[in-house]
């Protein structure tokens, strides 16, 4: 009870925050005059419509994590693990935000080398204020851009949690995430979306990989990491002999609805303004989800005799994950096609691939997010359409010559490179991190704890009482 240690740490942390606050203030005051004006009377450059949409989108993307994802995942596990499953996402809303504030945003989005940005440039978010960052989003405060991107950094690791539900030790989970975010997510984020990142197609990268809202950064990185994590953790006791059916499908359906709605913020928000590109990404998102629901449920109807409700919902999520990288680059009919394929491929990934390979990815993170976004990235190589997004045709320069990134076998190869790099990087990285965490903490709860359930054994609570 009496532990001077953590008090001291806490005191230090506070001090450090204070200090950063004041130092930031001091730093700012060098260019004080214009800066103050900018915060006072919104810079002329700030477009309130764009900012309104990006703030709304940021809220929507957080809503995808909670309550969206916690419902979707929470409903799929057994009663005794629902709270721990929800906690896996909830705690990231706190943990990731800290990392993001201290150095994460800077590592991802400040200038640096092709792999990562300078973590010190925006240490404690200094210099991220009312003034827009013209490279990323010229009409909204840089702080808005930072917030929007943070919501992505929160949901991506949260997706992984679905693969390790019902057996991971909570402390190991936290430890893993504290390493995974800076070592895997933030560099990938810089490489694909950061100025001068290796795969950035619009801001001076080398290999132009198209990824509008996070096929590589978000879904493949989390999907592959989930697979590796699930494999290293081992199967749940009793899997696959005992049925492990969703304890509350209703929760998962509510979650699906919220995910679909929130995904509009995710994809259409990635336009970083409220213009017609946002609308176009919104539309692609919607039609892909619709198509994938049909193809998944349709396949089930054909093959199993009945279309399951959870199948339709899983199809929706698959369609959403698949269209994510493509959402700002393709026409509506193309998005619809992508969705149709997504529903079918993910259906087989979940029902056959998993059974054949024999891993226990509890909630099918790899089968839905990983596989889905891989095919989305690849199909985008053919479907990218300069009429939908003219920047495709007039932005990327190779050796000083404009190169169109619209659908072609050439762009398909670029997409393949992006996918392969992400998969290997995330997979190998996760493997190494887990080896370390396993050594230091141990990955898995013991058999008794697993049989009692993680809610009670890890958190001392039961979800449902009298």
């Amino acid at each position, binding site marked *: 009870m009496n532990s001077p240690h953590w008090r001291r740490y806490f005191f230090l942390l506070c001090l450090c925050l204070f200090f950063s606050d004041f130092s930031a203030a001091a730093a700012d005051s060098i260019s004080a005059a214009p800066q103050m004006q900018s915060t006072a009377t919104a810079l002329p450059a700030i477009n309130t419509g764009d900012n309104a949409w990006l703030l709304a989108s940021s809220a929507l993307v957080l809503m995808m994590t909670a309550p969206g994802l916690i419902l979707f995942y929470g409903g799929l596990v057994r009663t005794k693990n629902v709270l721990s499953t929800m906690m896996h996402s909830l705690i990231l809303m706190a943990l990731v935000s800290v990392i993001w504030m201290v150095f994460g945003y800077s590592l991802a989005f400040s200038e640096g080398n092709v792999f990562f940005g300078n973590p010190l440039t925006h240490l404690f978010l200094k210099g991220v204020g009312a003034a827009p960052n013209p490279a990323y989003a010229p009409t909204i405060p840089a702080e808005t851009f930072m917030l929007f991107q943070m919501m992505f950094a929160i949901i991506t690791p949260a997706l992984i949690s679905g693969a390790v539900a019902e057996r991971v030790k909570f402390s190991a989970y936290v430890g893993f995430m504290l390493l995974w975010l800076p070592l895997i997510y933030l560099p990938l984020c810089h490489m694909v979306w950061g100025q001068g990142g290796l795969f950035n197609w619009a801001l001076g990268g080398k290999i132009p990989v198209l990824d509008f809202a996070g096929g590589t950064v978000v879904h493949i990185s989390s999907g592959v990491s989930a697979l590796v994590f699930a494999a290293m953790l081992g199967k749940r006791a009793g899997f696959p002999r005992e*049925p492990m059916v969703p304890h509350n499908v209703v929760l998962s359906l509510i979650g699906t609805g919220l995910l679909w709605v929130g995904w509009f913020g995710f994809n259409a928000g990635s336009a970083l303004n409220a213009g017609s590109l946002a609308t176009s990404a919104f539309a692609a998102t919607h039609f892909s989800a619709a198509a994938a629901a049909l193809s998944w449920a349709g396949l089930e109807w054909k093959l199993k005799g009945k279309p399951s409700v959870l199948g339709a919902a899983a199809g929706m999520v698959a369609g959403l994950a698949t269209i994510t990288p493509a959402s700002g680059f393709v026409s509506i009919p193309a998005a619809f096609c992508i969705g149709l394929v997504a529903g079918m491929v993910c259906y087989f990934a979940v*029902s056959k691939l998993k059974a054949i390979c024999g891993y226990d990815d509890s909630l099918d993170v790899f089968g839905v997010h990983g596989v889905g976004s891989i095919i989305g990235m690849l199909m985008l190589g053919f479907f990218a359409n300069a009429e939908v997004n003219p920047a495709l045709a007039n932005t990327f320069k190779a050796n000083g010559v404009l190169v169109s990134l619209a659908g072609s076998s050439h762009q398909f190869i670029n997409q393949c490179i992006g996918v392969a790099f992400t998969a290997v990087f995330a997979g190998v990285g996760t493997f190494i991190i887990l080896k370390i965490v396993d050594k230091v903490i141990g990955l898995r709860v013991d058999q008794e704890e697993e049989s009692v359930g993680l809610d009670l054994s890890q958190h001392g609570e039961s979800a449902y009482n009298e």
Partner: protein
Amino acid sequence: MKKIEAIIKPFKLTEVKDALAEIGVEGMTVSEVKGFGRQKGHTEIYRGSEYTVDFLPKIKIEIVVADSQKDAAVATIIKAAKTGKIGDGKVFVSAIEEAVRIRTDERGEAAV
């Protein structure tokens, strides 16, 4: 006194209850149970995987009656609960040695 335990199909509960009330059975206790028997379970599908569900939802009715009422009660239950299809359930009878009404301390058949 006898205790009659009947395992029946859930949607038959109202009928059985009404039929028992008609022949003067004034009290009963009901619980939700899961049954395993000749009536085989069904297949459910979740995210592409099929599971066989062995246990089916059933209702257990317990009534304690005077010895004299036993036969009527059993017959009534059987009549009301029968659909003729597999899974209709069973009735079991056993002896009760003592019964007390908590409110009044009445004992024996007066208590049931």
